[in-house]
């Protein structure tokens, strides 16, 4: 979980930008020693933290229902994998389904909002209301109205994940270079052509920033919604298992569930960052490493 940044960084070095005034300069590469250190330092840090944890638990004789040692947590993770694995799958399903709908819905709504200022005037207040109302507060209502608990969880996660995609993409669509818009007008581009060839590519960096936020938020919202559903959460995602472990004072399993959630979040962040990097590395300022 500590090496998520390595992929993008290494790829970045290979596709390094030529300096602005020297066309097609050779790509400078990172020295080998630095690359090794970039992997090594986070790993050493992680090992030290786990060591400290193990030492503290052993030295002060902490009971396992307060703080289990790392060995016990790993044992629990392996022993309870049938239960936790199933729970992880349920949570992942909700997270990714919510994220997918948020991406499609967010982009579609952003296009709609920027296409007409009347639509924007009519809809944007409700977008804001939807965003600023804490999802825990509306979850009970959604649980009542939704056809199933799973659907309710999905709606909760979607509400949270959808806003960053919408607001970032809207901002991107509005930030198109005015001269390029003139150019498209000059060459008689249709609205559709302007959208496909100009506005959407120009909004891509903004959308990808939204995607990175939305990916993390979708997981958080899925967990929060499961908490809100509480005992109704018979679908048993990770959050439900977490609560259950707490009630039963099965703290090692609680830690195992927590670690799974944490790892999932980190992987989602890593994957969305990688997607963003791959899409922008050839042209966008954010992906360029400068020498000076």
């Amino acid at each position: 979980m500590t090496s998520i940044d390595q992929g993008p960084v290494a790829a970045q070095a290979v596709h390094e930008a030529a300096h602005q005034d020297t066309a097609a300069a050779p790509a400078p590469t990172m020295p080998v020693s630095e690359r090794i250190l970039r992997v090594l330092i986070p790993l050493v840090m992680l090992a030290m933290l786990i060591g400290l944890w193990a030492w503290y638990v052993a030295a002060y004789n902490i009971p396992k229902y307060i703080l289990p040692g790392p060995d016990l947590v790993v044992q629990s993770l392996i022993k309870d994998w049938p239960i936790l694995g199933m729970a992880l799958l349920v949570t992942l399903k909700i997270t990714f389904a919510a994220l997918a709908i948020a991406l499609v819905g967010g982009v579609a709504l952003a296009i709609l909002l920027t296409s007409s200022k009347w639509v924007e005037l009519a809809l944007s207040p409700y977008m804001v209301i939807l965003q600023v109302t804490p999802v825990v507060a509306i979850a009970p209502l959604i649980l009542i109205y939704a056809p199933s608990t799973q659907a309710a969880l999905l709606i909760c996660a979607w509400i949270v994940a959808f806003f960053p995609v919408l607001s970032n993409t809207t901002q991107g669509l509005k930030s198109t270079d005015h001269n390029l818009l003139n150019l498209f007008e000059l060459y008689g581009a249709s609205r559709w052509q302007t959208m496909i060839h100009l506005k959407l590519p120009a909004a891509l960096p903004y959308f990808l920033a939204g995607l990175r936020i939305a990916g993390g938020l979708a997981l958080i919202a899925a967990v929060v919604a499961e908490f809100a559903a509480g005992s109704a959460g018979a679908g048993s995602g990770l959050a439900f298992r977490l609560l259950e472990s707490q009630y039963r004072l099965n703290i090692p399993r609680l830690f195992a569930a927590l670690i799974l959630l944490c790892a999932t979040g980190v992987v989602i962040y890593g994957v969305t960052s990688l997607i963003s990097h791959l899409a922008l590395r050839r042209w966008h300022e954010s992906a360029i490493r400068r020498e000076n």
Partner: protein
Amino acid sequence: MSLATSSPPSAAPGRPIVRLEHVSKTFSNGTIALKDMSLSIGAGEFISLLGPSGCGKSTALRMLAGLGEPSSGKIVWPDAAEKAAADKGEGEIGFVFQEPTLMPWATVFKNVWLPLRLKGISQAAARPRVMEALEMVGLDKFADSYPRELSGGMKMRVSIARALVTRPRILLMDEPFAALDEITRQKLNDDLLRLWEQFGWTIVFVTHSVFESVYLSSRIVVMAARPGRVIDEIAVDAPHPRGIGFRTSQAYGDYCRRASESLLSAIGAADHL
């Protein structure tokens, strides 16, 4: 390029391609950007609109391109087919902005392909024309580069190639080299002049540089600000091809003095710069 054999296009300006008839433009905030401008642009002419900022030269150029309508007066394209083409912005007009205005996410090739792509011409079908345009500006080796990998001058060349790819009959250039350093600018001026001598397009070139306008043009339209208007017209009859010889000649100096005096007389009493 066989420069020696090319005839000087300015010697015989053809029939008018487009006429501005008493064109005025007032912006919504009340600013009079352009007042009562009349100008006839003949085929094969190289016309410079020379003036200080705020004299309406860019406004006039944008209206020629169909970006914005005149508040009064009209722009007449004598040939109906040309008018139709100009309205649709297809083929007849090439426009070069002050900034290169390239799409940063697209390669040089795709940037130049854009005007053809918008007309539905596939990448394969457009390839010969795109490469030809890139060759004209000397960038055929950089087809697969991204704009950020190029220098300022090279970006401007790409922008020119994109304007040329539709084989326009009239090329509109809005202070295209104003942001470049002097050396790059001189090189691009020379290159532009060679291309014009070779292909005989009609060019309308907006600039605030007296020296640039005299060096390039067959006719200089001198404009003044507040309100934007035409104050003088100077025909530059120096023969082509022009080069370092012309730039250091007595005639060049005379034309420059004439244009500068014209500009100064307009600034004169009314404005305090």
